[in-house]
């Protein structure tokens, strides 16, 4: 120890003449850092109440609670997160995982209270002084815990598929499906949007677990047409998917298809038959039309032990699924598998039996306890423009039916399709395929009344049609069919400025100066369909209540006649999954009706 060791500490006394380093007012002068993880903020308008924050919270600090200001609607559960600061550890995982970026953190960090219950609050609803704070922790750009992009689906290339009716979509393999399933946060917002309320998060979870049989079990609880819906469903669930807000929605439809593809047909039949009542109840049900609504009701009723007979006018069951949807979207063998499962429940399907011709509606009524009318929309509507009565002006449904029958009729080198819906796309793409087969080139022009972004067809349908050579011209209203010497030569259209008027009614407004001529040896009208109710007979038609050419039904699908229910496109539209939902509803309603009565003897 030297003298300097003793003396040098005294140099600290120079601090006496320096300013203290103390923060003068630590209570007010110390805002959190710009990205400090302080108290929560929530943009409750942006929040969809998916509960992902609650699910990821490791401390069980978040509850989803109903909030008076927020109504439940498709894609928004109406719940909002309530955070318990008696649990929170400000790890910000909830902010990082938030599907809409509504949840964030302010840089405010001082909260003192004598009441321990005060620390449970709903950010954004229970107003706090930091609600409008600009600073704080936000999820960094491009930083996501769940995948943003949908796993790409393998599809046939346009040049391969353009002349063939082979199914376009390949379906996910195991690895792809797992990756896509991993993106799902199991919030369940989709369930309410699905007309038949399929247990979407649960069956996606079975993909993650690799338990496909359980997946099939879940599918059959709500939908006997998983092969069909896994391919052609309008997947409204994907419009309410929480992942849609910042990225692609989960490919729910493809995942459903993946599940059903992984299990053998025989095993599916066994799983579907689980819980089937083998003892006949004695009740008999007649179902007119073997479409999705009728067959779903048949499945439910037969599974519950009731006798079901389905009367189908066309040679094969499936209705519009078979005769409306082209094979490249829904292969017939897949549809047959679904129908086969339904048959295996004990449903009798009598094809080529047209009610009204082969058997009368009164006979059906006498022989059965109840009757379900699910006849679909098989008559094409006409534009009724000049020349539309020409024999080469045909309706899309009729043409699609002929294609399904296997008729390989000659298609002219130029075709015009009128309509912007999925049916129009179906027929345009089918005809394009046949043109390519017959002529080696495509000459299909599709004119739609709506602007491109308002067209009713699915986006992917439009894109794929273009890829296959179909020329799509939006905002064109048909004016007349051009006929020269009894032969159809083309279609004249005018520019359509707007489709609806101020009140939202259908009232197209045309610009007559903008006229185009489209060459066409064949004009297909795909502007809508109608049902043929002629077989009902006069007395029944009189007895039923009608509403704009549709039979009026109650919420359960029951008509004003107590023995008659109606379902499907003919009364409701517009897609397979809605028909399935109606089928379930009607089966339940019929069984409820049966519960009060004993079986008739026939």
């Amino acid at each position, binding site marked *: 120890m030297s003298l300097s060791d003793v003396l040098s*500490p*005294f140099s*600290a*006394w120079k*601090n*006496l003449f*320096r*300013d*203290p*380093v*103390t923060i003068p007012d630590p209570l007010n002068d110390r805002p959190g850092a710009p990205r400090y993880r302080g108290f929560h903020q929530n943009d409750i308008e942006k929040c969809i109440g998916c509960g992902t924050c609650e699910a990821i919270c490791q401390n069980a600090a978040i509850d989803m609670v109903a909030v008076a200001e927020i109504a439940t609607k498709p894609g928004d559960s109406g719940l909002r997160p309530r955070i318990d600061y008696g649990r929170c550890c400000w790890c910000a995982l909830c902010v990082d995982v938030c599907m809409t970026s509504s949840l964030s953190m302010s840089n405010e960090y001082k909260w003192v209270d004598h009441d321990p219950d005060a620390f449970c609050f709903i950010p954004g609803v229970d107003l706090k002084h930091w609600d409008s704070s600009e600073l704080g922790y936000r999820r960094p750009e491009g930083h996501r815990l769940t995948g943003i992009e949908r796993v790409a689906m393998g599809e046939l290339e346009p040049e391969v598929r353009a002349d063939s009716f082979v199914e376009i979509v390949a379906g996910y393999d195991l690895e792809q499906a797992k990756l896509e399933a991993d993106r799902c946060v199991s919030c369940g917002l989709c369930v309410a949007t699905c007309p038949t309320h399929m247990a979407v998060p649960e069956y996606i979870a079975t993909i993650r677990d690799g338990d496909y049989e359980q997946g099939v079990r879940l599918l059959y609880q709500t939908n006997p047409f998983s092969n069909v819906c896994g391919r052609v469903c309008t997947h409204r669930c994907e419009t309410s998917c929480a992942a849609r807000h910042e990225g692609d929605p989960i490919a729910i439809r493809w995942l459903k298809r993946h599940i059903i593809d992984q299990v053998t047909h025989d095993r599916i039949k066994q799983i579907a038959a689980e819980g089937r009542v083998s003892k006949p109840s004695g009740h008999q049900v007649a179902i007119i039309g073997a479409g999705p609504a009728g067959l779903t009701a048949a499945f439910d009723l037969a599974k519950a032990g009731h006798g079901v007979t389905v009367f189908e006018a066309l040679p094969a069951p499936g209705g519009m699924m078979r005769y409306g949807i082209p094979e490249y979207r829904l292969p017939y063998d897949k549809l047959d598998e679904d129908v086969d499962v339904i048959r295996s429940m004990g449903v009798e399907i009598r094809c080529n039996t047209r009610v009204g011709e082969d058997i009368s509606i009164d006979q059906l009524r006498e022989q059965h306890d109840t009757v379900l009318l699910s006849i679909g929309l098989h008559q094409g509507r006409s534009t009724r423009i000049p020349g539309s009565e020409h024999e080469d002006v045909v309706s899309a449904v009729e043409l699609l039916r002929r294609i399904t029958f296997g008729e390989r009729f000659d298609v002219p080198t130029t075709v015009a399709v009128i309509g912007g819906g999925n049916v129009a796309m179906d027929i345009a793409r089918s005809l394009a395929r046949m043109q390519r087969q017959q002529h080696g080139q495509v000459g299909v022009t599709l004119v739609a009344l709506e602007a491109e972004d308002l067209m009713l067809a699915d986006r992917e349908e439009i894109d794929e049609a273009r890829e296959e050579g179909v020329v799509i011209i939006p905002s064109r209203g048909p004016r007349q069919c051009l006929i020269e010497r009894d032969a159809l030569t083309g279609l004249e259209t005018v520019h359509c400025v707007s489709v609806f008027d101020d009140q939202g009614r259908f009232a197209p407004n045309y610009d007559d100066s903008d006229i185009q001529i489209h060459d066409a040896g064949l004009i297909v009208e795909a502007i809508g369909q109608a049902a043929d109710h002629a077989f009902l007979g006069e007395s029944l038609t009189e007895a039923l209540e009608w509403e704009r050419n549709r039979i009026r039904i109650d919420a359960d699908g029951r008509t004003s006649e107590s023995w008659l229910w109606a379902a499907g496109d003919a009364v409701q539209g517009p897609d397979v999954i809605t028909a399935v939902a109606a089928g379930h509803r009607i089966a339940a309603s019929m069984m409820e009706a049966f519960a009060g009565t004993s079986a008739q003897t026939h």
Partner: protein
Amino acid sequence: MSFEWIKIPYALLTLFIVANYGFLLTAVMAKIAARVGRRHGIPVWQNYVDLIKNYGLRSSITHGVMFYLGPVFRLTGGVGLLMFVPTIYGTEMFSNMSFAGDLILALYFVFFGSLGMALGAGESGHPHSAIGVTRGLSQVTAAELPFALAVYAVAVQYQTLSVTEIVAAQQGGILHWTLFSNPLAVAAAMLSFLGTMMRPPFDVVLAPQEIPIGPPTEYHSSYLALMQTNRAIFPIAKIVIYMNLFFGGAASWPVFFLKVFLIYLVSVIVGVVFPRFRVEQSIRWFLIWAVPLGIAAILMV
């Protein structure tokens, strides 16, 4: 010599001034020390607040008579010390009960408080108190040794045991102070002073971070308040002795305040910058550095 009753209010006045000066002075010293640590430190009135708070506490738990008497003895040590030395030299009013030969009594009072404390703390039954007392007494004993030697040297130098006379002998100019007439004794005494002011590096006994706070572990509320009061009076009283013995005493209050402040500052100047000694280190330090100085001082005289 008849007792003059007027001395009692005079003594109380002295006590009042010294106590308040003590409270303020310790706070000012704490603030100075805080500034060296580059912070603001306690407000100067903080000692009063603490005192009121401690008197205002509702519960006080006693561990027996000696436990109660501990702080009383401690305070008696401080007050007694103050009473028996002339606070202001030359005034009848503030010379209090000083008398011939009071130096020995003063020395006794310096030690009295520690002993009372030891007894009281021991009664509390807290093991930390017992450990603290042992450590405290050993260190204080070691620290008092050079002081006693220095006082002896001074007594021999001035051939008196009266503090008043020692002060009187130092009047008439700075160079008459013991500081210059017997620097060795003053050096020994100042080293001892460092050891008894309960400031680093010799405050291990009372350090909160060590065996928790030593002897006063169990003391609280009004007991603690009594000890706080003593903490204000006792150092001043002790400094008065030092001032009288070595620095020429004080003939007026301003001089008193200044000298006390400066002498107090000595312990602070050292205390602020040094870490603590362990008890055995400080004992060794006193024996090696301070005691030989004291002996040398006696030999010089």
